[in-house]
């Protein structure tokens, strides 16, 4: 049966628990001062599950949700060593876009944007998706050339993207310094109207709520300590809360994906780098689009509360440390002022870091592995959050049917041995 655009099958199961969120419900709770029921239930851990998903972020929870909603597989456990959304899902800069470079990449991320557009209605949870447009600046002829290439690939795949000139950029973002006297003059930009920002925590909570309502068990503070593999087949998972027997394990971790894969004996072409981000004090709304500059290693958007959220490229060396560095914030401040000199009095509230699993070709690694029953949804580098829904949908189909869906066929682990890389560095190295 054909899945509809929102990921549900017509007439499929709908979430009944917890109570439906609505304007009427809000009014009723306001008048009666009743406690809101918890968004998801907690369960004692069972000894066995049909499938275990490691990683309680947007990818793991989306996979659990679509397993239950699209395929009726509800005997599923999602494990997280911290709290739900404590990893990359709560640390990214919440930017969504689909203006990638390869046709495979564009199709894949465009499906994710389409799922995100319907997500609030699907999950009955306000995820605050704002399609305000995404602007990638070109400061050199080389980057302008890559942008024309991206725009043409996007158009062929029916994704709204175009190259615009400095005057148009100035019209969209009046505070931007587009004068030819700038240290890195703006020669043009890739304008991508469907891009935007979203409330990333709400996406995690919405999927957790939806999955829990369909019967999925969510186990927080449960660290995986080992994976049992015998005869090339997954038999179970050992955790800090006890052992679980299962024939299917999905590695949906970011940052620690090689540590989990090593437990199953699967080598991953991944290196872990921190990526730092920062947020300023709130100011009046003045920035209506997402602005990215690859040359200056910065991207900026303004939240609904008025804070400016900045991100950068990954740190210059591998690490599992999530400490911020002075070098980062110093470099970021310089680059931001290069773009928007008017921000020179704005204060930074805080900075943080998340872990990025970088692959050699800047594309993820999804699908089956040489170990039967051990699947991966990893290698998400700096672009994992925007792919959460489509990756979850595709991995759920992969688990349920045993076949690799067409939309992720290019992203298998075997592409490295075959030399069939999906080079997305030109579209994913900094700008997202």
């Amino acid at each position, binding site marked *: 049966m054909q899945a509809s655009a929102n990921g549900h099958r017509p007439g499929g199961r709908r979430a009944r628990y917890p109570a439906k969120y609505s304007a009427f419900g809000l009014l009723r709770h306001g008048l009666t001062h009743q406690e809101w029921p918890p968004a998801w239930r907690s369960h004692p851990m069972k000894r066995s599950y049909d499938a275990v998903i490691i990683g309680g972020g947007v990818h793991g929870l989306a996979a659990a949700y679509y397993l239950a909603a699209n395929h009726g597989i509800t005997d599923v456990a999602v494990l997280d060593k911290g709290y739900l959304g404590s990893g990359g899902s709560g640390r990214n800069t919440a930017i969504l876009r689909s203006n990638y470079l390869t046709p495979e990449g564009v199709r894949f991320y465009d499906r994710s944007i389409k799922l995100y557009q319907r997500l609030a209605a699907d999950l009955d949870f306000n995820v605050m998706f704002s399609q305000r447009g995404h602007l990638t600046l070109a400061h050199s002829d080389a980057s302008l050339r890559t942008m024309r290439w991206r725009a043409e690939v996007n158009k062929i795949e029916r994704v709204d993207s175009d190259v615009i000139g400095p005057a148009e950029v100035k019209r969209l973002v009046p505070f931007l310094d587009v004068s030819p006297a700038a240290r890195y003059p703006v020669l043009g930009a890739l304008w991508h109207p469907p891009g935007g920002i979203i409330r990333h925590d709400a996406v995690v909570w919405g999927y957790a709520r939806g999955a829990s309502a369909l019967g999925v068990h969510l186990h927080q503070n449960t660290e995986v300590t080992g994976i049992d593999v015998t005869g090339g087949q997954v038999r179970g998972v050992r955790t800090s809360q006890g052992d679980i027997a299962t024939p299917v394990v999905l590695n949906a971790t970011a940052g620690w994906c090689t*540590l989990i894969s090593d437990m199953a004996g699967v*080598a991953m072409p991944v290196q*872990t780098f921190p990526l730092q981000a920062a947020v300023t004090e709130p100011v009046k709304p003045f920035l209506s689009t997402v602005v990215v500059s690859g040359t200056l290693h910065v991207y900026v958007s303004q939240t609904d509360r008025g804070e400016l959220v900045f991100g950068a490229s990954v740190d210059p060396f591998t690490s*599992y*440390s999530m400490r911020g560095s002075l070098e980062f914030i110093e470099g970021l401040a310089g680059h931001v002022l290069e773009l928007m000199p008017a921000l020179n009095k704005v204060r930074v509230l805080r900075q943080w870091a998340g872990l990025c699993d970088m692959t050699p070709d800047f594309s993820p690694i999804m699908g089956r592995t040489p170990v039967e029953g051990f699947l991966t949804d990893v290698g998400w580098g700096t672009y994992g959050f925007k792919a959460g829904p489509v990756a979850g949908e595709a991995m759920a189909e992969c688990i349920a049917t045993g076949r690799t869906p067409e939309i992720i066929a290019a992203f298998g682990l075997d592409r490295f*041995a075959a030399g069939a890389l999906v080079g997305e560095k030109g579209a994913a190295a900094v700008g997202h």
Partner: protein
Amino acid sequence: MILLPCAWCGPRDAAEFQHVGEAVTRPDPRTATQAQWRAYLYLRANPCGWTAETWYHRMGCRRFFKVERHTETNEIRPARVAAVAGQVPGAVAGQVPGAEAAG
């Protein structure tokens, strides 16, 4: 600030260096199988703990050297030479100082 013990310049701010990556053994391209070569190109141990790696003193003496670094705490200690000697990839192998890398 992280201080890296350059084998020639002594302890310097890590911002002066370029991280080359994990010290790996380059197979002989004339005899390596395709699988060995691709493993050399793409696969890394990526441990959460101590790892031996190569750094390049880009803004200093412009030479390569090795240290061991803890990837979670970013502590640095001298490379155990026996474990990593001769493992710098590619053409830079001849420049590896060996025992002096203990800095």
